[in-house]
């Protein structure tokens, strides 16, 4: 029996050659455009046409230098950073509070609230754009990052509530009982016991929202036209016009805008994969 198993696994291992071939081909397909993106930022303008695929014959850092010389560039990054951090903080804070309640308070009403949130997970907020535009205008928030925060927070809450409620629900109740026995208030329990316990789920929620918020073009495109409030991605569309004939420079901007998220991803790819695929698979 054991021998058979071994034989079998050997056979399976041999079978892996076609698998490797498939995966190598697809890895190549995945990475080729990234390669093109990166190497061409080090070329002078003419060379990307004469030598599109290879390493630069003449290496240049000029594209990066001229980009970094643009003071606005840092403003765009600051704005994107602010948008991500503020929105994520609020999503995690409000989402975990709400999930804490929904996980423990089981009535028809709370079940309805929960379903109402989960429904929002499935419907794209873009549908509401025209109304949101009026709301932002009436609130006087147009052209400021403050028009983006509420939208991203609202957009992130359904998934946050869903993931965190399921997670908290799965925690063993004994963990809290001691707290209740000691007479701790519900907020103390949330803060001292629940929050530390749900960290992995918070990370998942954070990553699930981080990428779409950083990469969102739609709402900045509609709400923001002022230079000092533009996010990186919105600036990319504008610079696309400005450097429309200067591909190496444009590619440099594209690469720089993608750099922060890719770096984070490579540092913590496991959490990323989990975070980005969360929300659809339960738990």
């Amino acid at each position, binding site marked *: 029996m054991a021998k058979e198993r071994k034989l079998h696994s050997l056979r399976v291992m041999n079978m892996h050659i076609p698998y490797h071939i498939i995966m190598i081909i697809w890895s190549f397909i995945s990475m080729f455009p990234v390669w093109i993106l990166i190497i061409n930022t080090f070329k002078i303008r003419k060379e990307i046409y004469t030598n599109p695929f290879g390493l630069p014959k003449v290496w240049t850092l000029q594209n990066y230098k001229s980009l970094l010389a643009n003071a606005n560039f840092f403003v765009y990054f600051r704005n994107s950073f602010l948008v991500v951090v503020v929105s994520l903080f609020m999503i995690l804070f409000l989402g975990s509070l709400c999930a804490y309640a929904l996980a423990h308070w089981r009535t028809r009403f709370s079940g309805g609230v929960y379903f109402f949130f989960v429904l929002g997970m499935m419907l794209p907020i873009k549908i509401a754009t025209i109304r949101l535009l009026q709301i932002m205008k009436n609130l006087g928030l147009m052209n400021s990052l403050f028009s983006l925060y509420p939208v991203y927070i609202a957009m992130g809450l359904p998934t946050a509530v869903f993931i965190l409620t399921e997670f908290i629900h799965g925690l063993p109740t004994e963990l809290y009982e001691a707290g209740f026995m000691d007479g701790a208030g519900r907020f103390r329990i949330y803060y001292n016991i629940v929050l530390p316990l749900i960290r992995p789920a918070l990370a998942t929620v954070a990553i699930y929202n981080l990428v779409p918020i950083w990469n969102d073009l739609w709402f900045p495109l509609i709400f923001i036209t002022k230079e000092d409030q533009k996010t990186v991605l919105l600036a990319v569309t504008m610079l696309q016009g400005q450097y429309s004939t200067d591909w190496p420079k444009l590619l440099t901007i*594209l690469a720089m805008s993608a750099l922060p998220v890719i770096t984070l991803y490579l540092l913590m790819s496991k959490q990323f994969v989990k975070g980005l695929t969360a929300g659809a698979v339960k738990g």
Partner: protein
Amino acid sequence: MTAKTNKIRAFQGGASIKPGGVYWMRYVIPALAFYVVFMAYPMIDSVRLSLYSGTAGTREFVGLANYVRLFTDEVVSKRFWNAFGNNWVFFAWHMLLQNALGILFAAILTNRTMRGRQFYQTLIFIPCTIAVLVTGYLFKLMMNPVWAGTTLKAAGLGFLVRPWLGDRSTALTCVSLVSVWQWVGIPTMMFVAAFQGIDDDLIEAASIEGATPWQQFTLIRIPLIVPVIGMVAIMTFVSNFNAFDVVFSMETLDGAPDYTTDLIGTLFYRYGIAGQHPVGIPEPGVGAAISTSIFFMLLCGVIPVLRTTQGKE
């Protein structure tokens, strides 16, 4: 003392939920408020907006006129049904190719004896972290015959030099493929998780019974992940009818060439938000009518699926 017991009972979901219920509301309301004010209400109120015409200053109730215009006006309805149809083609590519590739990759990546799985997985997923806009511009360059045409021809690959994004017969396919390329990592990982959830004993038993790996795959593993496939299908459906950036960056807002890559997202932007080039007068009412139609379509697809998956608990 009583307060304390109450708390415990409330916590355990006991009978004395009422005092606890009011208390719990405080935790729910902040999140609910954001969600309602900035998402649920604007979505539902868009339905009302679709019954009005004009912009902010000159709003006027027009009943169903926007819908009449959307579905019967010669130009507008042609554009709408065109974008609607394109969106289904776009969705079909994702459904058939992206999700099939996802299952294939997931099946490979869940082979415990295979080496380098983590490495492949990391690579496959990289495109998912890049903005659609960035990949869109990048592919626009790569698919441009002016860019690498000379080099490719010199290498004997002249057949690759075509106006991929400008030819009506290939443009939508190319846009779809770029999107498939970018997002294949998501279904892959979801299927990986699903395959990993399958009880090993089942597979082992089957292999002892003499089932070939192919049989194990089609007769055991695939049927077991059908619910996940359903979930992925819904996700794909929703995100595809939400797509905008990929066309915006590769094919302009008009869905060039000749509206063949126009999707609901770009159509909605042109009519509802920006107005048609060159004069640029938006018609928020028509835009709201477009989004309302899509809203109900998505709702019809989403609610039954949610009911069944949520119902199982």
